[in-house]
């Protein structure tokens, strides 16, 4: 028996018969209805602002209450005035900022002229960065300018900041850069 798929979904005569029977008082109660538990049911909820663009959408972060505290889910905050629960594709993928097997977990170092990156310890990386910053800063530091005015500035380092930093992070960053004597400080402020 050949029917088209279009006809097949439109065969509804039997449903009408079923309704007629239900008029006799025989309940057509659900054959199957599974109440399902949300994966976020026992999670801790924290509100946050999406780190990506200047719109500043609100999001809810669901984290596990059991020990590890990992992120279970991040979705738009329906109560947030800006986005009312919606998120763009980048925002909808926020949970992958932490939950992604492709994330780097160690600092990576590529020595001058080396072809490969290699993982190094945080201790080595931080002390190496501090050492090199100090070298550059000390060698390029100007105590006075040509007019003999005191300027105390580091001319050999510039900072191009992270667009993903929020207002408070930018303040700390700015304070650090000024303390080092930097004058070339640029930031693509978004949120």
């Amino acid at each position, binding site marked *: *028996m*050949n*029917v*088209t*798929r*279009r006809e*097949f*979904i*439109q*065969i*509804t*005569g*039997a*449903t009408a*018969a*079923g309704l007629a*029977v*239900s008029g006799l008082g*025989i*309940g*057509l*109660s*659900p*054959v*199957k*209805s*599974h*109440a*399902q*538990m*949300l*994966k976020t*049911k026992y999670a801790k909820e924290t509100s946050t602002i999406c780190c990506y663009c200047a719109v500043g959408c609100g999001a809810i972060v669901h984290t596990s209450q059991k020990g590890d505290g990992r992120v279970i*889910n*991040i*979705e*738009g905050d*329906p109560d947030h005035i800006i*986005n009312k*629960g*919606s*998120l*763009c*594709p980048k*925002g*909808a*993928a926020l*949970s992958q900022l932490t939950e992604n097997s492709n994330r780097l977990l160690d600092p990576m170092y590529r020595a001058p002229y080396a072809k490969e990156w290699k993982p190094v310890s945080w201790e080595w990386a931080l002390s190496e960065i501090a050492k090199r910053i100090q070298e550059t800063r000390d060698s390029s530091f100007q105590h006075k300018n040509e007019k003999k005015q005191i300027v105390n500035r580091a001319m050999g380092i510039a900072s191009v900041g992270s667009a993903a930093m929020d207002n408070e992070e930018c303040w700390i960053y700015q304070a650090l850069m000024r303390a080092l004597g930097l004058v070339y400080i640029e930031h693509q402020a978004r949120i």
Partner: protein
Amino acid sequence: MSNSFFIDTTLCTACRACQVACKQWHDLPAEITQNRGTYENPPDVSFNTYKVVRMRENVIDGKLNWLFFPEQCRHCIEPPCQDIAGDENAIYTDAKTGAVIYTANTKYLNFEEIREACPYNIPRKSSDGTMAKCDMCNDRVHNGLLPACVQTCPTGAMNFGKREEMLDLAQKRLLEVKAKYPKAELIDPNDVRVIYLVAYEPTLYHEFAIASNAAFDMTRQVALRKIFRPLKNIASHLF
């Protein structure tokens, strides 16, 4: 009282937030894909991808149009896949939400039969034969939340709610949209729980946007099962 989606493709910008939110909520892995010369990616729905935004370039009345179609399971009111399966432990309709649900028992079904029966070419299987597709975020809906794709949609193209409300909204939008797009129509609104509003001929959006007219062989067994299904459901409550 079951639910329905209303998807207004005239508002869709193909940002694919729905695709991402769907993967995110269901914890589905990414797929390794290749550049096929289109932003439409992954190339098709799969066991791990329940939702794909179709993008088609068409010249209509001498003007280039880029048509977007967020494709997913339509949660048919009389689902052919469920009728063909004939096993409530594998494919059933959640009477409370209207979601057509595939369980792990789908691996005992004949995949080709199920896929053939689908007017929209949606079911896909994994390597062990288990089938999967959009589940209407049944867990979220049971707990009073919107499906992930609807919640994330930034343009309002995706809507979800009580069927009557969605049908009203669809009719209202159809009237508005017709002023600009005289050929606008709703796709199979009386047969499915995912109602699309399109501005042009549905097949311009995607081959399977509208229920396929291709014939398939319905066995007598399946035909009988379909005809007697409501009676069988009643019987299961009497005994």
